[in-house]
């Protein structure tokens, strides 16, 4: 029963197609002799296994995950409270909107050279730059979520004598939760991009720096192994975030069922 349900949920056709593409890539690379610029899957996969077994690639992965997670947590810790604060006061929103609109369109990757000047090549620089990139979607989505929360619920809570803090925890936050989750989902992929980019151009460690080292050394299988690992990391982050988001949204969905 369980195996059958799993079989139905896994998209067999799709994954077979992925396998087919890998096979075709292998064939094309061998037939057209593209090994100067692309390493075939038959060499990339062993290189991935070796890199993980030797600890070199897995160590780089650990570094990337550490700075990425640190930056993302920092962005949530800053972005959600600030978003709630600005979102719950019209005056604060009016006061800050020019500053926000000014800072938001600056691509965070453009700040990597600046962050490098202040913090050097270490993981601290990368953590801050990830946090900066990730904070905007979280802040803006929290802000809109809070502003969009139900007026009637607020009035009812106010009339029932619920304290300011009680209203925040029991009305505002639950209502804003789906927006906050969306913000975190967007931030999760931007943060990963910025983390690996900072490693690639300015970093001293992590998958991005490993990838760049292998590229300069012209060790193609090792380089493509790092590329593959980055893709798998991105995919895993996506799946985890989406599962978490679905949980959150299902919960709030039940809370808000058929509200007129």
């Amino acid at each position, binding site marked *: 029963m369980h195996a059958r349900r799993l079989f139905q949920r896994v998209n067999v056709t799709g994954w077979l197609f992925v396998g087919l593409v890998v096979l075709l890539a292998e064939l094309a690379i061998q037939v057209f002799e593209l090994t100067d610029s692309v390493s075939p899957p038959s060499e990339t996969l062993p290189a991935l296994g070796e890199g993980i077994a030797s600890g070199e690639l897995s160590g780089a992965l650990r570094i990337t995950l550490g700075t990425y997670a640190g930056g993302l947590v920092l962005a949530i810790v800053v972005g959600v409270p600030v978003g709630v604060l600005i979102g719950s006061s019209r005056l604060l929103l009016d006061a*800050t909107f020019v500053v926000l609109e000014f800072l938001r369109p600056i*691509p965070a990757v453009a700040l990597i*050279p600046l962050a490098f000047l202040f913090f050097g090549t270490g993981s601290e620089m990368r953590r801050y730059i990830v946090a900066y990139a990730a904070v905007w979607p979280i802040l803006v989505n929290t802000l809109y979520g809070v502003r969009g929360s139900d007026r009637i619920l607020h009035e009812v809570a106010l009339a029932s004598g619920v304290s300011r803090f009680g209203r925040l925890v029991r009305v505002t936050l639950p209502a804003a939760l789906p927006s906050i989750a969306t913000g975190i989902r967007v931030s999760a992929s931007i943060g990963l*991009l910025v983390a690996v*980019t900072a490693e690639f151009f300015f970093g001293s460690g992590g998958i991005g720096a490993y990838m760049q080292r292998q590229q300069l050394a012209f060790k193609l299988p090792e380089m493509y192994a790092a590329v593959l690992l980055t893709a798998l990391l*991105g995919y895993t*982050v996506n799946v985890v975030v989406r599962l978490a988001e679905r949980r959150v949204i299902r919960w709030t969905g039940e809370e808000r069922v058929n509200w007129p």
Partner: protein
Amino acid sequence: MRALGDIWRVLLGVGVFVGALLVWEIWAGAEESFLVPEASEVLTRAWESWPTSEFLTAVAGSLKRLAAGFVIGAAIGITLGLVMGTSRATRQALDPLVELARATPPIAIVPALVLTLGFGDSMRIALIAFGVCFPVLVNTLEGVRAVSPEARDTASMLHVGRVERVFRIYLPAALPSIFAGLRIALSIGLVMVVISEFAGEGGGLGHYILDQQGQFAYPEMYAGILFLGLLGYGLNVLFRLFERRVLAWHYGATGERNG
């Protein structure tokens, strides 16, 4: 709390912004670090550097590549989205591959692009197109999937052909969603411009920022970042105007004002 009038609101926002600049100015003056130039110095350098040919060439190069990458990426995204949205078999076959590709941080394909296409414009345009394509694809797909069953049934009842159905029903119905995707793609495209210009020579605003940093011209570097932000803001405003024009019929039909 009394609501403020519109003019007061804008004045308050601008006032806080100017206040923040003043705080920066005073702080940078007290810090006396060459890493933190004063706000006034950055603004002066920005004002001096924008009419120079070095700067204008950089901006023109960035815009040219952004335009090319955006159009290619959007075309691929819309086409794939329409095909996947209208054919169940294709959707099922392509879904994991697309999910894998779109979850890949685009920086990961930079070394591969450099090795296959070199450091030139084609590598950059390919990277921009890669970044642009997925948000457009996902939004097109969602837009097509949301077409009402009535519209689908009517079309099949009237024996509207497959190709005609795509262009006369699915594409127009998905257009608001496609535009939402294009708007996200535009800001991602700008990020890709910067990343692609960090890699190797060839100019552009991203390379300009890196160059100024390398020459210890920090006020100019800040100015470059500032211009990049202004460019992003300006492009977004232009895009919204364009969107409002193209989707005028949609707002008219649904009574929606701000999409």
